[in-house]
């Protein structure tokens, strides 16, 4: 099972990928990452929620330069617009030719790369949504 490097990014109890955000109890605004104060209404009454695992590609780019020697390039990063109506930054693992703004994607947890010391970097990413049937 994937170990978390950052708390609140996914659910390590169930082993299933789950993104934790927050929802303002006063005005309903949703946030990722979770916030302590709502920037819309400034309420501190924030509920921890699990965000949708589905979304569409909002923006993306293919990165060709290596930040460290172990980076496998090119890789794709972008913003995914979740069904909750908010975007989140993420690694996107899809064949480049199938990637467009608006492409449906689903959340997955796994290895997203290597640290400079060669250790696997666990994290979340989005992959192409495969329609059932």
């Amino acid at each position, binding site marked *: 099972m994937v170990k978390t*490097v*950052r708390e609140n*990014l996914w659910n390590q109890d169930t082993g299933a990928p789950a993104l934790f955000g927050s929802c303002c109890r006063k005005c309903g605004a949703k*946030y*990722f*990452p979770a916030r302590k104060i709502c*920037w819309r209404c400034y309420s501190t009454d924030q509920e921890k929620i699990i965000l949708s695992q589905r979304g569409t590609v*909002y*923006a*993306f*780019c*293919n*990165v*060709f*330069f290596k*930040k460290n020697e172990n*980076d496998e390039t*090119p*890789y794709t*990063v*972008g*913003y995914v*617009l979740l069904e909750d*109506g*908010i*975007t*989140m*930054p*993420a*690694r996107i693992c899809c064949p480049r030719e199938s990637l467009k*703004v608006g492409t449906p994607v689903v959340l997955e947890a796994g290895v*997203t*790369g290597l640290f400079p010391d060669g250790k696997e970097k666990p*994290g979340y*990413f989005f992959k192409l949504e495969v329609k059932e049937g």
Partner: protein
Amino acid sequence: MEVAVVGLGITRFGHLPHLSLEELGMEAAKKALKDAGIGPGDIQIACCANVLAPNLQNEFTIGQKILWELGINKIPVINVENACSSSSSAFYLACLAIQAGAGEVALVVGVEKMLVPRKNILDAVTGAPEAAAGFSLPAAFALKANRYMHKYGVNVEDLALVAVKNRRHGSLNPFAQYREPITKEDVLNSPVIAEPLTRLSCCPQSDGAAAVVICRNSMAKRFRSRPVYVSASVLLSGSYANPPSLSTWEADFRAAEKAYAMAGVGPEDLDVVELHDAFTIAEIMHYEGLGLATVGEGVRLVKEGFTFLGGNIPVNPSGGLLSRGHPLGATGVAQVLEIALQLRGEAGVRQVKGARVGLAHCMGGELHGDARSVTIHIFST
């Protein structure tokens, strides 16, 4: 505003291994004092901007260090960090101080030394989920470029023209880091950093410093027969909306509206502009944020030659960040200095004829797809 710019000083920008951070700052400050015709004892307030010295040189409060060496002491000294807009923020603070009557003459220094062997830079996208996902500054701007191109049907060749223009301008600036003109093919064929941005679509890392002396406008003529006046000074942070726009910086529009109202001018009154072209796409988006073009039409300005020297509204006559270079903490003051030179009519071969009103725009940092800070200063003769 009741503030005038009366002294200008800048070092060469580029890889300057023979000069320390302090020496760079001193050189720019000394030149600015000399240009204003004043001595160290005349400075009553000083603001000094720097971003990376705590990381790269293990130095902090660098302002006092530079000023100490120059013999400027016993005055308020403020060190400022606001990412790429650090020194334009320092300039903003100094203007406020003069305006408030805290003193009559102030020195603003911006200094940075990035090209050091110790480590490579530069991630203003640290700590956030963006960093965990593998974002970097070029990636953050490439995302914007893709989003912009998708929305407005713009192609990479159009974006490349920004680099061609600014390199051509930089070839006319003896203080610029890159002085060789390049072609559109050079830009498109240079290595891809983050699609669609190639190496020549991104500004370099640089060493360099710039400084200006400002004073209460009623006394400006004691220093110079033709002072340059500050008619607007604005600093704002982003709104960090979610979903982010990515194809505009909302903070640009807010800052521009405020600055134009303060100065009593509109974009149509500007003769010359320096803006924050960290990446080619950024210049296009800032055209729109500053009201030089309507939203979605920015590339026309460069495609049709308007923003080249000789065009209706030359942008980045100094070469901009893409060509003059981008020592983070020095950039904002370097932009102010270029506009002041242009309005004095002392910009030499890159002079915009008859320039009377100019604008300097700087943007710092990146947070959830928005700018962390935006500064706009408007100047007039």
